[in-house]
C-alpha cells in the first residue's frame, strides 16, 4: 500500500479535528475533535512504524501511550465539562469568558479607589497641620 493513503487520511482527520476545536461551540464536541486530532497522530505513528519496519515497533508502543493519555484526558475533560454544566446550565465554549480581563473603566479595583476619588476633582483644601513637639 502506498504511503500516501494513510498519511492523507491522517492529514484530513487532523484538519477536521482542528476545525472542530476552533469552530464548535459545544465543549463535548470540542473534546471529540481533540480525540480526532490525537487519532490522526496515532494513524501516522502506526503508518510509519510499518513503513520503516521498525524492529522495536516504537511507533506502535507510542500509539498505546497516546491512547492511554487520551483516555485520561477525556476523563478529566468530561469531568470539567460536567462541573461547568452544573454551575452554568450550559457548555457553550463561546460564552465561557471568565478568562477575559475586565474592562478598565467598568469597576475600579479597591487599590485604585483612592486615586479615582481624588481625581474626581473638587477635593476640599486640607487644613494646615498644627505641629506639636
Amino acid at each position, binding site marked *: 500500500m502506498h504511503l500516501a493513503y494513510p498519511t492523507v487520511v491522517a492529514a484530513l482527520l487532523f484538519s477536521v479535528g482542528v476545525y472542530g476545536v*476552533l469552530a464548535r461551540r459545544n465543549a463535548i464536541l470540542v473534546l471529540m475533535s481533540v480525540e480526532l486530532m490525537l487519532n490522526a497522530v496515532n494513524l501516522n505513528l502506526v503508518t510509519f512504524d510499518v513503513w520503516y519496519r521498525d524492529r522495536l515497533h516504537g511507533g506502535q508502543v507510542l500509539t498505546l501511550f497516546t491512547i492511554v493519555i487520551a483516555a485520561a484526558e477525556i476523563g478529566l475533560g468530561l469531568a470539567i465539562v460536567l462541573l461547568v454544566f452544573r454551575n452554568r446550565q450550559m457548555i457553550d465554549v*463561546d460564552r465561557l469568558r471568565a*478568562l*477575559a480581563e475586565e474592562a478598565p473603566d467598568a469597576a475600579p479595583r479597591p487599590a485604585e479607589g483612592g486615586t479615582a476619588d*481624588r481625581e474626581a476633582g473638587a477635593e476640599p483644601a486640607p487644613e*494646615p497641620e498644627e505641629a*506639636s*513637639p
Partner: protein
Amino acid sequence: MIWLASFVALPPFLAAFAGMLSGPSLTRLLRGAPAGSPPGAGSPLRNGPALIACAPVAVSLVLSAIVAVAVWRDPGTRTGALTLVDTGSVPISVGLQVDGLAAVVGLMVCCVALAVQVFSVAYMSGDRRYSSYAAFISLFTSAMLLVVYSGDLIVLYVGWEVMGICSYFLIGHHWEERSSSRAAVKAFLVTRLGDVGFLLGVIVLGVGAGTFQIDRIVRTAGDLPQSTATAAALLLLAGVAGKSAQFPLHTWLPDAMAGPTPISALIHAATMVAAGIYVVARLYGVFLAAPTALAVLGVVAVVSMVGSACAALAQDDLKRVLAYSTISQLAVMAAGLAVGAESAAVFHLLTHAAFKALLFLAAGCVIVTAGSNMLAHYGGLRRGMPLTFWSMTVGFAALAGVPPFSGWFSKDAVIEAAQHAALHGGEVTSGGIAWLVYVGLLVTVVLTAAYAMRAWLMTFFGERRGTYEVRDPARILTWTVVALAVPAAILGFFGLGAPELRPQLGASLLSVLLLAVGAGGAFLAWNRDPALDPARALGPVRTVFARAFFVDELYAVVIVRPVQALARHVVQFDQRRVDATVLGTGRAAARLGGLVRFVQNGNPQTYLTGLLAGVALIAAAVVIFQ
C-alpha cells in the same frame, strides 16, 4: 586653668545624659518614691533625677568659683585649644577662653542654674516627666557654659544652638496643652530666624578675619574693612535680637511663659536671653569697629525697653509682667553696650540675673500657693507668706532700681554712661543716638517703677481675692528664694570696686526722682480702689499696652497668614499638578494598553485560531524565504 573651665561645663553635660537614661532607675535603687507620685512623697535625697540634676551643677558652681577667684587674683585672658580642626579654609580651634567677663558670667550661670534645679525638685515633684525635665536643664546649663567659656565662634555657635533646642523642649514641657506646644514652636522658629543671621555673621567675621578664635578676632577687629565689620556686626545683631528677645524678634518671650516657672527663671535670668548680650560684650571690639551696628543696637534697645515696659504696665498675668520686664531690662543692657558702657552693661546683666531669677522663683511660690498666674486672683498675700513677700520685695526693688539694691547700681551706671555720651559726645555713638538712648532710659525708669509697683501692690496688698489658703510653700522653695534675695540685695556693692560703675550724685538723684514719680503714680492709681487693677488708669491705651502694641497681630497678618496661604497653595499645586501628572501617565499607559487588549476576549478558541494562524504564517515564511 583652661582644663578647670572645661570641667565646669562637663558635669552638667554628663548629668543630662545620665539623668535622661538612668534617673528613674537611680530612684528605684535608692528606694525613693517613683516619679509622678504626689508632691511631698519621698525625701529629695532619694530622688534619683534630682540628685543627678543638682549635684553636678553644685560641682560646676564650686569649679566656676575657683576659676573666678583665679581670674580675679591674676587678671588676663587665658586661651587654650584642645584641637585645631583643619577645614580647608579657615580652621576651627576647639578651645576655650577664660577672662574676667567669662569668669563672672560663668559663675552667675552656675549660681542661677543651681537655684533653679533645687527649686525644681520641689516645684516639679508631682511631674512624671521630671527626669527628662531636669536633664534638659542640665544640658541647657552646660550649653550656656560652653557659650560663656568658648574661645572660638564655631564652638560658641554649637552651644548657642543647643540652647535653642533645649529651650524648645523646656518651654513645651507641658506639651499636652496646646498653648505650651505652640509657644515652644514659636520660640524655636523666632530664635531660629535670628540664628540664621547669626551664623552668617559668624562666617562673615571668620572669613574676614581669617580665624574663628574670639581673642584674635577682637584684637584684629580694627583692621577689618569697614563694610565687613558692619555686615558682620549687623548679622550678629539679628541673632542677638532673636536670643535676647529684642524688638523685631521679641514676641516669643512672653509666650514662653507657658513653660514651667523655674524654666522661665532659667531662660530669663541666666541662660538664653543673657547669651545674646554676652555675645555682644564678648565681641565688643567688632561692634566698636562698626558704629552703624551700634547705632542700630541703640535704636532697637530704645524701642524694646520703652515698648515692653509699657506692655508690662498692662499685663494681667504676673509671669507676663516679668517677661516684658525682662525684654525691657535686656534692652537696658543693649543700650549700655550701644553707648560704649560695656562694663556697666555686663554689671547689669549680672544683677539682672540675680533679681530676675529671684522674681521668677518667688512668682513660682506665689503661683504654687494661689494656683493661678493672674494678678487679679492675688491680693493681700503679704500676711500669709512673709518670706516670699520680703524676698519678692527685694526683687522688685532691685528691678525698679531702688537704692541701695543691686539694680540701682547697675542701671545707674548705664544711665550715667548714656548721659555722658549724650552731653559730652560719646566715643562710639553719634550724639543723636546717645540722646535717644538717654531719654529712653529715663522713660524706662519711670515705667519700670510703675509696673513693678503695680505688680507688687496687686500681689501682696489689698484684700484677698481668692479662696486658697495663704502660707509660704514648701521649705525648699522658700529658702531657695530667700537665698537668691541676698545677691539681689547686695550684688550692687561689688560695683564700687570699679571707678566707672560707682554711682554719681547727679544721675542718681535724677533716677531716684523719676523712680518716685513712677512708683508714686502707680500707688495713687492703686490707692483709689485697691480692689481694682491700677492699669485702668491708662484708659483706652490699656488694651494697646496689654496686647503689646498688636505686634503679634501684625506678624500674624503680615507673615503668618501669607505663609500659611502659600503653604496651602503649594499643597494644592502638588495635588492638582504634580500628583495629577504622575497619575495621568499611569492612566494614559493603561488606556494605550486597552487598545491592544481587545483580542484578550476570554474565548480560548480565538486564541487558538490566532496561534494556528501564526504557526501557518511562520511556516509559510520559512518555506518561501528559506
